[in-house]
């Protein structure tokens, strides 16, 4: 969660403009602990004692990171590929070096690992403990969006600009000014409107817009429009209405990127999982991930507390048994003491009587 959150914030920060003079990309705000890999002690070693093979980890898609460590071994069935076991649920996958697994990639350095070598990969275990803020100046917060949109004067429809911010690094203020003009209804779907997008260098894209859909970030449409920004509109445009997208002139008054930060609250980017059929399961929002992590820990502690109380009572019973066998009850000892005391006195009395009988006998014999 820490790794996914800080990567997301840093990415959005890099997409905006900060208050430095001249405005530039926002610097990263958070720094998290690096991933690490630990070799097993039985792995091959060099003659000088260091490990022959080392594994490097890089995180390439923080949204898909899972809260787990992994075990890496050479795959005995397919030489050249490796087996990765996810330790949280035991899922075993066979991957090649350089594949992206659960959001990270591993690379091997040094010699080729032997068949019995294994490594423990921990991409996120250090992330939260070593998370810290790496931005000290308030002017570094990139609240401004690099592009601003405005609707033209002559528009006859009821359309207004709702929000405009950059979403990935394809955004390029050099392509501005961009003009978006709306046309007729889409013949394929009457609820959509066709529009054409003209860049500053003359490239023309066309697409169809539906109320609620952002413009500028549809890489899966045909033709794909991947301009790196999302423009959201309110209201309904009419034919020939236009919007102009320009590079932001007054960054100190613009808050487009700050609104993008706000949207991180509701974005499900923690722990997305790649399903077997290649589709991406939804992750959780940051608040849900935190609440569920907290209740997960709480219920584990609850379980542990319960187990501890069970074992306390087991120990108490065992102790009672043991001391019942080998311990001492003072009342019992005191009464036995008196009993043996009296027995001793009685025995001593018998001796006394025997002695006086002997004395009498000897007196009789001595006459």
């Amino acid at each position: 969660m820490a790794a996914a959150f800080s990567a997301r914030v840093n990415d959005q920060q890099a997409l905006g403009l900060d208050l430095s003079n001249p405005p530039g990309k926002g610097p990263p705000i958070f720094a998290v602990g690096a991933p690490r890999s630990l070799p097993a002690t039985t792995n091959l070693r060099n003659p000088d004692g260091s490990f022959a093979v080392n594994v490097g980890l890089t995180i390439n898609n923080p949204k898909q990171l899972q809260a787990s460590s992994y075990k890496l071994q050479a795959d005995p069935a397919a030489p050249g590929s490796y087996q990765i076991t996810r330790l949280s649920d035991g899922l075993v996958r066979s991957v090649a070096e350089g594949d992206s697994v659960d959001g990270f990639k591993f690379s091997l350095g040094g010699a080729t690992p032997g068949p019995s070598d294994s490594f423990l990969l921990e991409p996120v275990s250090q992330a939260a403990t070593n998370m810290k803020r790496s931005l000290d100046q308030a002017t570094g917060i990139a609240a401004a969006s690099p592009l601003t949109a405005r609707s033209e004067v002559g528009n006859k429809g009821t359309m207004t600009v709702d929000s405009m911010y950059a979403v990935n690094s394809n955004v390029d203020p050099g392509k501005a000014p961009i003009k978006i003009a709306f046309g007729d209804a889409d013949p394929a779907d009457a609820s959509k409107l066709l529009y054409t997008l003209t860049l500053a260098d003359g490239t023309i894209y066309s697409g169809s817009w539906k109320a609620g859909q952002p413009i500028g970030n549809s890489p899966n449409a045909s033709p794909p429009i991947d301009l790196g920004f999302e423009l959201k509109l309110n209201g309904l445009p009419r034919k020939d209405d236009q919007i102009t997208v320009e590079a932001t002139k007054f960054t100190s008054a613009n808050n487009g990127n700050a609104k993008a930060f706000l949207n991180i609250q509701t974005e499900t980017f923690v722990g997305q999982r790649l399903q077997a059929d290649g589709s991406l399961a939804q992750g959780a929002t940051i608040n849900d991930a935190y609440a569920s992590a907290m209740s997960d820990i709480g219920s584990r502690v609850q379980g542990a507390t319960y187990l501890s109380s069970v074992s306390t009572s087991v120990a108490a019973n065992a102790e009672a048994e043991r001391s019942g066998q080998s311990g001492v009850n003072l009342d019992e000892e005191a009464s036995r003491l008196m009993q043996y005391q009296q027995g001793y006195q009685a025995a001593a009395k018998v001796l006394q009587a025997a002695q006086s009988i002997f004395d009498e006998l000897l007196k009789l014999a001595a006459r």
Partner: protein
Amino acid sequence: MRLSTANTFNASIANLQQRQQKLQETQQQLTSGKKIASASDDPTGAARAERALVSIGRVDANQRALEASRNSMTLSESALGDANELLQQMREAMVAAGNASYSDAERAGIANKIAGLRDQLLSIANRPDGSGGYLFSGQGSANPPFLDQNGGVAFTGVAGNIQTGNMDNFPLSINGEQAWMQAPTGNGNFETMALKNALNPLASAKGWIDAGRVSNPSALTGHNYYIGVNGTAPTQTYSVYDSDLGGAVVKTDTFTPGKAISFDGISTTISGAPVDGDQFQIKPSTNTLKVFDVIDRTVAELRTPLRGQAEISQSNSGRIRDLDAVMGNLQNVRSQVGERMNNLDGTESRMAALKQYSKSEQSAAEDLDMTQGISEFQNQQTGYDTALKTYAMVQRMTLFQYINV
């Protein structure tokens, strides 16, 4: 079964300690007022409380944005009110300038008055919002958004407005371009004006055309028209040409000054004494009328000496029509601002309700029921007290008390 004395003592001590620990826990719950001190006390309750806390945080952030927006909107509304006052004063001056007995000097005096009001109006347009920006700066401007330049006052900001808000969108600034630079020309549908005489390009028209009105909205075409007057009085005719249809004649009839000329849903009146060749133009309205351009033009025309009566009447009626248009536009923006402030009030009460709901969710999940807590505490207290008393009594009972050895 035999009980070892050591075991008995140990068991009693353990029991006492357990009771003491429970007592302390209950005491802690009572002092803090919460029944969940750590997540392990009630994991699902803790998660519920956490979600409610997040919701409260979001509402608080939204509330702050709403306050900022309300501040800005209040200031903007009063600025627009002040602007309306000034424009009203200008209009009265203009109406006075229509007095036919005024001489050029008197009209120049009125022009000076209007020029003075113009400066005040410019400072209202550049009014700051108290936190470093300007009320009418739209999507941002570094300097005052309205700059007085050679060609008139220009808007140096970016059109649109800045929105803030976590869960909703609240406006933080007004689109200055729309308020001050985009009033509709003419009467909202079309604009009328007098042109120079077709036969004598140096002479201006001797009649004047009024602002016109729409007699039949469905017949409007939105084309450009020319009305030409032919002949000399009293037998004059007029012809209406549609320049978008290549100069085709739309209507032609005898011309009587002051009588309405109707065609294509438009009805207009030409008064005065137009001569042969006088032309008037009708073109569709655009949203390009600028407040300061109107004022500048008014002042310039009032200061022009030696104008004919027709010119003066045309100029006065035209400028009053333009002043009405910009006042109407500003009024429009003002009522939009008022509506937004209404919206803010509604949103505020809605958010207060949401915060109340989240707080009670949180309280239900993690707060202690005081009555229950207190009675539990007293129960445990009594239990602990009893345990201590019985321990003291039992511990004294040993055989050695009765053996005097």
